[in-house]
């Protein structure tokens, strides 16, 4: 803002500058006229002086020898110059010798005038001495008219006119500058007003942002509260079951009774349900471990036909419209869960019976369209689950995917179903939308991107790797040595006990540093069973260093954090990752599988 201010200040200087210029021009014009006049006078004086000297030199002899007629002739000759008004010769003593006067011009004085040369009343009087051989003999007097004043005025008038025109131009420029300055001032004030408005707007925006941030924060807190409240509620129920049964078990054992299997069963059941809850929470948080494979949704739906019909019951007609032929990439088991869950939701919305439609279609999006405005253009497979049940209000529809939000009575639903589905679809890079009106049914639409990679051509689904694991029932040779690294003592104790029960030799360590010491020692180790997150060195590091030193050693990593992936290099080396919570039986199966592979490298 500094430069425009200086600029405007300069503009404001315009009028005084213009005035000064006009004054300067007038003064310069006057000076020019004055100088011109002086120069003209000087020139005239010089001219007449030359004429006077010519006359003086020709008339000298006549003057010396007192020849008036001759002198008169010379003087009369001056009449040829019309500017000469009078001419005269004065002798050595200044007395008039001869003279010539034109018309009614002023007579030369009888005595030589002392004040020549001079200019007065438009007359120019010049004298010149008559000299012959350096002797002064007398004086010549010449009186001429100067250029008429009117003519000079005319000449100076042109100069004056030029000065006037220049002054006028400068004055006009000055006036223009004044006008421009005013416009600038107005612009400046407008700009200032605009800047003010902008500042106000900015402040309002900031205030609004603060309000929105506060709103977001409160919504987040509400969601977290709902989530944690829901988890606590579910877990409290389950913990009550587990604790109650364990207490009963303890009591019965103290009483010496042996018919306690049902208590253990009930406790295990509660724990399984708890594990199921955490699995669903992980699905919602899009952190469940997925095994995506090329899948044709139409085929998947066809295969689920019986299961679906059984699940929804006889009162509801199930119709499938399976037009999709493109492949998608997703976890097949989870996808089945999704369809089943949605079908069950629809069933619950149609207690009086109704119709359930499951629809698949290939869809090419040329441009983003509602309701999937954030889906980029491309090929998709659309899966819709449609019912003509109770539907939901707009408010319910909007909160439907919030975790632990449920419209079902206490104890009938976890409120995790739709949020789990939403999380899964998002994790599979798909899009999810619920379309519903109260009393008119619900339509759940999902888009999954078309898959065109390897395996898409193979119509047969890839065999599940778990199958081969499950098949391996061979026991490995006993006395294999297993290094168990786990910082959580209870978990470690559990794992160590389970492994030992299988007949392995176990070395246990609680942190990465001491585990490294073991790996660097000469002790023989067949299997490293390690948590990923450890104090000291983490599980990846232990696996890397251990396998570098012991190429034959197998590694089984465990983690409670599903965002811990297996690094590429470790995955290639055949490392298996177990996600907590896992069943101890799985642990044993995997450990045996790895050790068997170690014994017999030909088996993959």
């Amino acid at each position, binding site marked *: 803002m500094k430069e425009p201010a200086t600029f405007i200040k300069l503009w404001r200087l315009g009028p005084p500058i213009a005035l000064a210029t006009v004054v300067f021009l007038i003064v310069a014009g006057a000076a020019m006229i004055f100088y011109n006049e002086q120069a003209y006078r000087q020139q005239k004086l010089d001219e007449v002086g030359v004429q006077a000297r010519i006359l003086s030199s*020709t008339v000298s*002899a006549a003057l010396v*020898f007192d*020849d008036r007629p001759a002198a008169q002739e010379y003087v009369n000759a001056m009449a040829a110059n019309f500017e000469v008004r009078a001419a005269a010769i004065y002798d*050595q*003593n200044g*007395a008039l010798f001869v003279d010539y006067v034109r018309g009614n011009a002023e007579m030369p004085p009888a005595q030589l005038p002392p004040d020549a040369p001079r200019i007065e009343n438009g007359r120019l009087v010049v004298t010149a001495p008559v*000299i012959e051989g*350096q002797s*002064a003999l007398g004086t010549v007097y010449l009186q001429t008219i100067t250029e008429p004043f009117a003519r000079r005025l005319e000449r100076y008038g042109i100069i004056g006119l030029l000065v006037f025109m220049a002054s006028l131009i400068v004055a006009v420029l000055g006036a223009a500058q004044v006008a421009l300055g005013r416009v600038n001032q107005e612009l400046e004030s407008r700009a200032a007003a605009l800047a003010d408005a902008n500042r106000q707007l900015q402040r309002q925006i900031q205030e609004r942002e603060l309000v929105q941030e506060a709103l977001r924060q409160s919504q987040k807190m509400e969601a977290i509260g709902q989530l944690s409240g829901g988890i606590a509620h579910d877990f409290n129920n389950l913990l009550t079951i587990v604790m109650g049964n364990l207490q009963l078990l303890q009591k019965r054992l103290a009483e010496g009774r042996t018919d306690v299997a049902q208590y253990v069963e009930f406790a295990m059941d509660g724990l399984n349900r708890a594990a199921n809850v955490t699995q669903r929470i992980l699905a919602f948080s899009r952190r469940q471990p997925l095994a995506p494979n090329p899948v044709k949704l139409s085929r998947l739906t066809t295969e689920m036909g019986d299961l679906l019909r059984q699940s929804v019951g006889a009162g509801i007609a199930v119709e499938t419209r399976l037009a999709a032929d493109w492949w998608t990439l997703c976890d097949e088991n989870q996808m089945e869960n999704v369809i089943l869950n949605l079908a069950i939701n629809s069933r619950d919305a149609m207690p009086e019976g109704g119709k359930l439609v499951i629809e698949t279609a290939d869809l090419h999006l040329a441009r983003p369209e509602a309701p999937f405005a954030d889906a980029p253009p491309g090929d998709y497979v659309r899966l819709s689950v449609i019912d003509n049940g109770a539907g939901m209000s707009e408010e319910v529809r909007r909160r439907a995917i919030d975790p632990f939000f449920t419209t079902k009575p206490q104890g009938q639903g976890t409120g995790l179903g739709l949020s789990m589905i939403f999380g899964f679809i998002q994790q599979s890079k798909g899009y999810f939308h619920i379309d519903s009106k109260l009393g008119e049914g619900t339509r759940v639409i999902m888009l999954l991107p078309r898959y065109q990679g390897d395996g898409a051509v193979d119509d047969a689904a890839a065999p599940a790797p778990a199958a081969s694991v499950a098949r391996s029932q061979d026991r490995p040779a006993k006395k294999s040595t297993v290094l168990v690294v786990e910082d959580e003592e209870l978990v470690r104790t559990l794992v160590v006990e389970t492994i030992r029960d299988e007949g392995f030799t176990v070395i246990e360590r609680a942190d990465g540093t001491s585990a490294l010491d073991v790996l660097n020692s000469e002790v023989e180790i067949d299997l490293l069973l390690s948590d990923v997150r450890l104090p000291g060195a983490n599980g990846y590091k232990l696996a890397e260093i251990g396998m570098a030193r012991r190429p034959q050693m197998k590694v089984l990593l465990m983690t409670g954090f599903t965002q811990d992936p297996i690094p590429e290099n470790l995955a290639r080396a055949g490392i298996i990752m177990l996600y907590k919570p896992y069943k101890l039986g799985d642990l044993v199966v995997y450990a045996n599988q790895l050790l068997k592979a170690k014994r017999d490298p030909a088996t993959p």
Partner: protein
Amino acid sequence: MRAAVPVLIAVFLFARAPPPASAQDTALEFAVKATYLYKFAPFVEWPPQTFRSATDAITLCVVGDDPFGAMLDQAVAGQHVGDRPIALRRMPMAVRGASCQIMFIAGSRAQPVADALAAVRGTPVLTVTDRSPESRAKGIVNFVIQDNRVRFEIDNQAAAQDRLVISSKLLSLAVLGRANE
């Protein structure tokens, strides 16, 4: 310029008095002629070898019976032509090589005007005669009276023979010269 002309001469010469009457006053006539004599000097150019230096005097000689007397001495006194003073000599006869630049020849019984002229003919001397009627007795300059005024004739040819150059301004004032031209 520095020369102060005696008041008497000034009165005779320049007063706007009427010119001398027919019964002219001889004294006035000669007073005018006396001043004319040295005034010829600025209009005449002598050969360069005539003067030894730039301040050598111009010598005015009166040959024969002097008609001027003290009048001439007064007229010449203190006069200069440029840096040259005017020197006055009187001599009874014209002598060749007498180193006169201007010679007024009045003549005498012993040497008439014509003889005197003949004596200096061929030397750079401006000879002046007074009212000679016959041509052989006329100097280069010959005073005449015209319209009751003192005028003069100039024989420019004789001047040229004597290696003198006379200013055209002077020639234009000469009576005969004017008539001749």
